């Protein structure tokens, strides 16, 4: 089935706004910046079946920046893993949709993440597992740019290249912002493409990681690297808060911020182009 990915991105963004607006607070900026990548993976590229979330040999996605959980949940709900109504339970006591991804609670979540750096190593372990099982799966992972300051990211990078895990395609959500300031101010990770190349990875630099066509092309290009002996890093130059202007305008304050239901409703109109 061919989906209209631009429309899917709008749907995911609206659902992120709805669930975080309903709750009143959340990691809104870094949820909105990864939407295009999620749409491309779950609605085009991944070999998955929402009716069989544990299907052997399925492609897997590990969101190492676990605080983007609400974006993943919105994507899973749109893809039919669970009812969209469940999104309104985000972070409520007893919910199956906690702030950070939890494989034991949420249908469709392949790994528990949230302590930064660890999910990426887990993804490398999953990629190794798939190689050992020879099941042909492709393993996708998403890391944050602030997260890339964790030493464990580079331990995992070294191991994945060393073990030739070319079934691993990772993304960096390079939105250039973290909690305490810009990434460049706090502890610069530049030059990022050169670092990944030096660690032995194929690197694809996407000029606009919030342009769904560019992301789609990058993943298609990355898939050509399956079998190349190298894992691939797709650097997505993104905008933190993308899609909702007032959230973008908050700058580094948009990492985890209050969102009222009225603000969410206005944001949804903005995303739908109704204003």
């Amino acid at each position, binding site marked *: 089935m061919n989906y209209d990915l631009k429309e899917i991105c709008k749907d995911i963004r609206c659902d992120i706004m709805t669930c975080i607006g309903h709750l009143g607070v959340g990691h809104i900026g870094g949820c909105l910046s990864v939407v295009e990548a999620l749409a491309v993976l779950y609605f085009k590229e991944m070999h998955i079946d929402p009716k069989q979330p544990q299907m052997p040999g399925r492609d897997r996605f590990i969101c190492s920046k676990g605080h983007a959980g609400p974006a993943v949940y919105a994507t899973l709900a749109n893809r039919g893993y669970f009812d969209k109504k469940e999104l309104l339970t985000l972070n409520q006591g007893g919910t199956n949709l906690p702030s950070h991804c939890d494989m*034991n609670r949420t249908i469709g979540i392949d*790994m528990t993440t949230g302590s930064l750096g660890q999910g*990426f*190593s887990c993804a490398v*372990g999953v990629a190794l597992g798939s190689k050992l*099982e020879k099941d042909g799966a492709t393993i996708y992972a998403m890391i944050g740019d602030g997260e890339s300051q964790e030493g464990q990211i580079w331990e995992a990078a070294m191991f994945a290249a060393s073990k030739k895990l070319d079934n691993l395609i990772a993304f960096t959500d390079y939105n250039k912002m973290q909690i305490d300031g810009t990434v460049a101010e706090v502890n610069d990770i530049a030059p990022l493409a050169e670092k990944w190349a030096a660690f032995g990875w194929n690197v694809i630099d996407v000029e606009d990681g919030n342009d769904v066509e560019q992301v789609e092309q990058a993943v298609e290009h990355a898939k050509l690297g399956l079998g190349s002996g190298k894992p691939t890093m797709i650097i997505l130059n993104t905008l933190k808060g993308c899609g909702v202007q007032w959230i973008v305008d908050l700058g580094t304050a948009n990492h985890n911020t209050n969102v009222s239901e009225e603000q969410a409703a206005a944001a949804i109109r903005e995303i739908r182009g109704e204003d």
Partner: protein
Amino acid sequence: MEMRAVYAACLAEMMENDKHVVVLDADLSKASGTLALYKRFPEQMFDCGVAEQNMASIAAGLSSYGFKPWIESFTPFATRRICDQVAISISYAKRNVKVVGTDPGIAAELNGGTHMSMEDIGVIRSIPGMVIFEPVDEVQLRAAMPVLNAYEGPVYMRLFRKELPVVFGEDYKFDLFKADTLKEGKDLSIFVSGMLTADVVEASRLLAAEGIDAEVINVHTIKPIDRETVIASARKTGAVLTVENHNVIGGLQSAVLEALAAEKIPVCAVGVEDRFGEVGKLPYLREAMGLTVENIVAGARKALSLK
């Protein structure tokens, strides 16, 4: 036989029988006794290099793919260094990963204070979901390995690498969650884990010569502690001594005290008195840390005097 040789032989048997058993190292396979297994099981042995955090989380990822990973390093690097990875990637995520720390406490000898974990049990014991097992001798280790492998959940094993006096007979029956009574007695209960168990057995003979009838119980699984056996023995004898190659804070004494919190029974301890390790050979370190048979005897007398 060295404990690591038994450990490696058990791993080899498990890997032979089950392709999903995998072992991950952080550049210490030689020390762990598993180096020779790399040639025999190239698709089940992985050296992550000096990167323990990555090793722990990779194991969690492998476990999500149906593998049964064992990760190994020296005790401080398998616990305090990767505490968050053990807590989150492994236990919080309910991953079936076995964490093996070698050279516990004073066993690190010439590597000295930096490599000497006096706190590893305390670190791991406070993480929900973790089981902590410390073998006494090769008989218990051999009996435990398949049980640990079959147990679906995270376990930390605190493994002395070299030779240890054999305490258990060949007819030994192992239960992961049941403490072993080595000697019944009526005057006091001595609870011990790991390498000091043989010393406690020796101390109990010296105590018997003084007319003191000590009950000796090996608490091989420190978490979850066998409360039933601990409480029943303590109630029977009315005095308790704990003996451990670990800080007296957070380890066996703490676990026993927690089990006995509602009992009015005196508890004394022989263990490392809240200090770091230092370099030296075992005889020196036993003296320096007070982990001697004489101290165990003295500790028993003290516990008795508090009855």
